């Protein structure tokens, strides 16, 4: 490649958009071919084809189930979860004017982790895990928000501090629950949940978790230019005509919905909400008008790919929380080298 990667991406906005819309679709398509049940590529193509023709196929119904009810839901869930984590990470980094912040900064992940652990001990039903994890995530952010309002002189720093406090309190509570949990039944479930996985994905689950994720994503996409202005800091954003408390509340609300929706079905998946935004920044710059949609696409694709690798690599499944950084780290270093640090 003669042009540097950076210039290549920055020069062609149209190619860029096609690429970032086409890339997730390709990821979805090719991921249908990956799974533990041995299905040949031609069979899979036939199964996919049968959706688009009226011809009756004489394939065993189990094949249909594997593609449409096992593989596809998981892929779509991966896309949504990865996208949600990355998009909220991007939004938070700009909002709090700090590139080292991730989607979990306001305590969403630890809150959700606590909710899930509690549900595992008390009920051990998947539905209750989702509900309590979601509620835990939202509660944590609400608490951070309230702490941030105690002393109002520097709202941004107070809010982050609130998040740090709430996160550590919930982490302690998680440890407490682990300590109390039945070491043969509940403790392994808690540990596995906290490491993150898409394995539970069924269409029913996606439907529940997709609502908050889609609402959050849509909100962030709509407000994305305002996020640029908010990143100028409170006073400047107000002097530029923004009702900053309302605008900030919307961004925090949407990011929290998206992240809580993601975490409650997938468990805690680190890294995506911190580094995917930076990959986006390296590739296309910092303007949130582009960066927000691209984070969504990159995050989604990244998680699908990592999930595929996690399933192929060993007989069992490697938890996502382990693989995201193992695969993402070297990739990020490669990009840093290739783009010569981008705009940083």
């Amino acid at each position, binding site marked *: 490649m003669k042009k540097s990667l950076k210039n290549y991406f920055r020069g062609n906005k149209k190619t860029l958009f096609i690429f970032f819309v086409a890339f997730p679709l390709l990821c979805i398509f090719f991921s249908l071919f990956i799974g533990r049940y041995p299905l040949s590529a031609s069979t899979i193509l036939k199964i996919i084809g049968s959706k688009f023709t009226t011809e009756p196929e004489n394939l065993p119904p189990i094949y249909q189930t594997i593609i449409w009810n096992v593989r596809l839901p998981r892929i779509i869930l991966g896309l949504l979860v990865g996208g949600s984590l990355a998009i909220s990470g991007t939004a938070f980094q700009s909002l709090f004017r700090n590139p080292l912040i991730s989607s979990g900064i306001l305590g969403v992940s630890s809150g959700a982790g606590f909710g899930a652990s509690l549900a595992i001990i008390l009920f051990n039903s998947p539905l209750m895990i989702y509900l309590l994890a979601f509620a835990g995530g939202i509660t944590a952010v609400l608490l951070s928000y309230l702490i941030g309002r105690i002393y109002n002189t520097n709202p941004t720093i107070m809010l982050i501090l609130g998040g740090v406090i709430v996160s550590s309190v919930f982490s302690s509570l998680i440890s407490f629950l682990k300590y109390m949990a039945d070491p043969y039944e509940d403790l392994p479930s808690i540990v596995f949940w906290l490491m993150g996985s898409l394995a539970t994905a069924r269409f029913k689950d996606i439907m529940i978790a997709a609502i908050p994720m889609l609402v959050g994503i849509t909100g962030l996409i709509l407000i994305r230019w305002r996020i640029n*202005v908010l990143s*100028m800091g409170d006073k400047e954003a107000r002097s530029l*005509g923004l*009702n*900053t408390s309302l605008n900030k509340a919307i961004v925090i609300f949407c990011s929290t919905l998206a992240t809580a929706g993601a975490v409650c079905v997938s468990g805690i998946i680190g890294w995506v909400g911190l580094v995917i935004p930076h990959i986006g920044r390296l590739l296309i710059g910092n303007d949130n008008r582009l960066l927000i949609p691209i984070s969504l696409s990159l995050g989604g694709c990244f998680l699908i790919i990592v999930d595929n690798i996690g399933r192929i690599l060993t007989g069992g499944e490697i938890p996502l929380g382990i693989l995201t950084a193992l695969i993402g780290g070297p990739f990020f270093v490669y990009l840093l080298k290739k783009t010569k640090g981008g705009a940083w």
Partner: protein
Amino acid sequence: MSLPLIEVKQGSFSYHRTVVFEKINLSLKKNEILCLFGPNGCGKTTLLENILGLLKLQKGSIFLDKKDIKTLKENEIAKKIAYLPQIHNKTFPYKVKEIVLMGRAPYTSIFSAPSKRDHQKVDEVLKLVGINHLKNRPYINLSGGESRLVMLARALAQNSEIIIMDEPTSHLDFRNELEVLEIITALIQQKKISVIMATHFPNQAFYFKNKGIKTTLALMNDKIIKLAGPPEEVLTEKNMKSIFNIKSKILSYDDLKREKLKYLIPLEIIKK
């Protein structure tokens, strides 16, 4: 007599229990410049932020076009007053044109992005300020003078009739300072903009006066406005001595075309 665009009446402000300023009266009329001169920490920035509606006076009121600023929404204020802050903390390396585009925020509704017309306005102000060549540069790498011009362009993109500048020439070198002053002069004379400007340099008031702009200089010290009026009446050797304890000389220079050009030379601090 034209009506004042901005009027501060008996304005007092305190942080918790510390009084920053009290009983301040000021007004700005169309096509004028109001220079606010005073020592570090005397409350100039706080006063400016009150006029912008970012802070709220405890006593007194501020009127913008006859309307109490407390009753106006952020975007209503931003369409009338733009702000050139003294300190701008750069975080993400946005491109210059992306920064300037933010000046269009008051005209953009919450869930929408700027339109083609907003982009045209950006091109227009970039050319006006003379930084069109920097358009695609990350603003984080610019020099002090260049970034000041970028922020000025952003303020101009707001299309407001008033610009509030907080020490627009601080940390600038000799030539860049003059360049900023010349741009401000051109804005007042050609674009009919009115300016409130905090400054540490009394001669800047003379500069605008010498350019033929209607200039008011307000001396702020000890939490109040000590004096306000045309620079030649406010900046006298006697006032500098009584208010700031500074021995100074006013020099005038006749270039034969206009009135005498005046400058203040500070000589020494009077030790008690």
